[in-house]
């Protein structure tokens, strides 16, 4: 009899567990159905993260009642996430490679913000915006050919500075990154040696240096290592109180990343290429680009053309492309996008079903 009772208890227990599980599943699916009406999830670029999760998401939530959840996991992971359809939209500062685009299977890539990447340093005794560098010298540092801050090539550009005899610690990203793409795209344009040896991509084989994960990883490493040089999205320079480097642009001016200098670089666009990404690094010598920042970049939102949340995504992206929203992120050093890019972007939004 006791054994029989046990058997009954087990059977009852199993049935109860099954019932609980079924109820849980039903509640969960009901909850997610309810959630899907009011929440958009996105992931990717850490460059655009302060704009999306810091400014746009709260503004959109209070204006339209739609929540936008954005995770700053890096451009490469953002593309991977939208390819796997685990998020509603991805964000990347580098356009998708052909392999990535075909894997994403019918995704549309829409430019939605304009920002920049810039070198930062931590040289004892040197303040922000004091150090002057040229593209070729920066390339030599990252190639491991210039290894000391007192190198004649650096001294020549900084006659007024008292540069220490200190080893340069090169810092770069270890994860796939849009910042790396912009940075190496620029170096490829100003240094033949860089172009042939390393090239440009979201991940490259670095000849030297310390790899760190994410903008925050690079910022932390630069800040804690005397003698370090790294590159981060402009917003992170301000946020982490890092020392910016002035770069010589093609017109011969030493400039730093700002809304104006980034906006000026974007003027190089005559038309928006249809399928490829837009490169606006290193604008040529011209009066128009006299103060242009050479490492400016568009950053993209990537959306499946056939999405269950098509209408919501269309509404959100069109809203973000509006003049008011573009202006609302200027204090984070995002420049307003040129009119023709906004127009092309709005065209692409229409492709979302």
């Amino acid at each position, binding site marked *: 009899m006791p054994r029989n009772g046990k058997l009954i208890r087990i059977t009852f227990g199993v049935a109860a567990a099954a019932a609980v599980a079924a109820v849980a599943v039903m509640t969960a699916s009901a909850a997610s159905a309810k959630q899907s009406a009011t929440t958009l999830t996105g992931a990717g670029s850490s460059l655009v993260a302060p704009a999306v999760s810091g400014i746009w998401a709260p503004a959109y939530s209070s204006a339209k009642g739609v929540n936008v959840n954005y995770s700053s996991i890096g451009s490469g992971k953002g593309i991977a*996430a939208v390819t796997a359809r685990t998020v509603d939209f991805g964000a990347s500062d580098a356009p998708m*490679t052909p392999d990535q685009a075909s894997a994403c299977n019918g995704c549309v890539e829409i430019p939605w913000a304009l920002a920049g990447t810039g070198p930062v340093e931590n040289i004892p005794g040197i303040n922000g915006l004091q150090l002057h560098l040229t593209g070729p010298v920066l390339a030599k540092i990252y190639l491991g050919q210039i290894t000391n801050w007192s190198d004649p090539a650096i001294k020549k550009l900084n006659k007024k500075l008292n540069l220490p005899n200190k080893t340069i610690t090169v810092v770069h990203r270890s*994860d796939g990154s849009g910042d790396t793409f912009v940075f190496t795209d620029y170096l490829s344009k100003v240094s033949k040696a860089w172009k042939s040896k390393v090239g440009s*991509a979201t991940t490259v084989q670095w000849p030297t240096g310390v790899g760190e994960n994410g903008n925050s990883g690079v910022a932390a*490493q630069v800040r804690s290592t005397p003698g370090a040089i790294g590159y981060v999205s402009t917003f992170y320079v301000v946020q982490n109180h890092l020392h910016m480097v002035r770069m010589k642009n093609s017109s011969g001016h030493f400039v730093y990343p700002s809304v104006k200098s980034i906006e000026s670089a974007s003027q190089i666009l005559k038309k928006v290429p249809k399928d490829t990404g837009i490169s606006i690094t290193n604008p040529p010598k011209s009066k128009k680009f006299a103060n242009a920042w050479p490492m400016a970049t568009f950053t993209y939102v990537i959306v499946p053309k056939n999405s269950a949340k098509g209408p919501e995504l269309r509404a959100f992206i069109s809203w973000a492309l509006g003049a008011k929203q573009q202006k609302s992120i200027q204090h984070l050093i995002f420049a307003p996008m040129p009119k023709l890019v906004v127009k092309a972007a709005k065209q692409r939004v229409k492709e979302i079903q």
Partner: protein
Amino acid sequence: MSTYDATGSAARRPFSGRRARAGDLILQGVAGLAALGAVVLVGLIVYKVVQGSRLSLSTFGLGFLTSTGWDPVHSQFGAANLIYGTAITSFGALILATPLALGVALFLTELAPGWIRGPVTALVETLAAIPSVVIGLWGILVLGPVLRDDVMPQLHSALGFIPLFGPSSSGSTIFTAIVVLTIMILPIVSSISRELFLGVPAELKEAALGLGVTRWEMVRGVIFPYARGGVAAAMILGLGRALGEAIAVAQVIGAFNGPIHANLFFQGNTIGAELANEFSNATSNLELSSLFYLALILLVFSLLVNLLAQVIVRRVARKQGLVAQ
């Protein structure tokens, strides 16, 4: 399936009567399914890894194991430096962790006053529960700078003639990764060793002490020989943990994919760290496939280590005339 039947018949014996058998059958079915699930899962993982690495296998072949570099721009991928980095960090951590762990275990079983044992044991085990990403963060922010400023330069100036202790400039190095891994495997090795030391029969220890030997002689002559096989197994378990650790290492090793070098105070990379950094960012099919190839190498590595562990444990057990428990 033979194990399945064996457990079944063994479990059936103590019970009799038809009604009891129904409950037994349920238990047997559920447990059998769980075991089968684990086996199928491993099989599926191996299949997926092999299938994923096929493109890279056919492109690079075995040359992948001997070439160096990770260059998505020029589609050149090689694993030699990653294999070296994985080996040096894991064995380095094992060399540092083993004496420390044995010390901790001896202290907790033989030397510490009773009231200390409980809390310290709990704290050491807590170390194992810290998420690796937290240890990695601490590695970047605290450990790295300390090693860079107060440990590596001193070791370099004292032992700089050995190529392992070269000059350093950053806190993210192979050495930092070794120290982080040491901290991560210490609790594994020490808690198993502690259990083993506790298992040494009190009569043996008392007999030894009764003969008038010192405590150290007792440890060396009784405890260590008795626990040798188990300690070897604990070390291998720790090694397995170190081999596969990805996140914490990725955070502190500096992701250098250049040529293999001897300097521990310079950046390097490991298979696990490279997988963690690159897996979701792969920009081409060949890169993705090469990452699967790396995973395959790690899988084979771990399998060999496990086999080695079993061989060592058996051999030691046979030598002692004991059966491995």
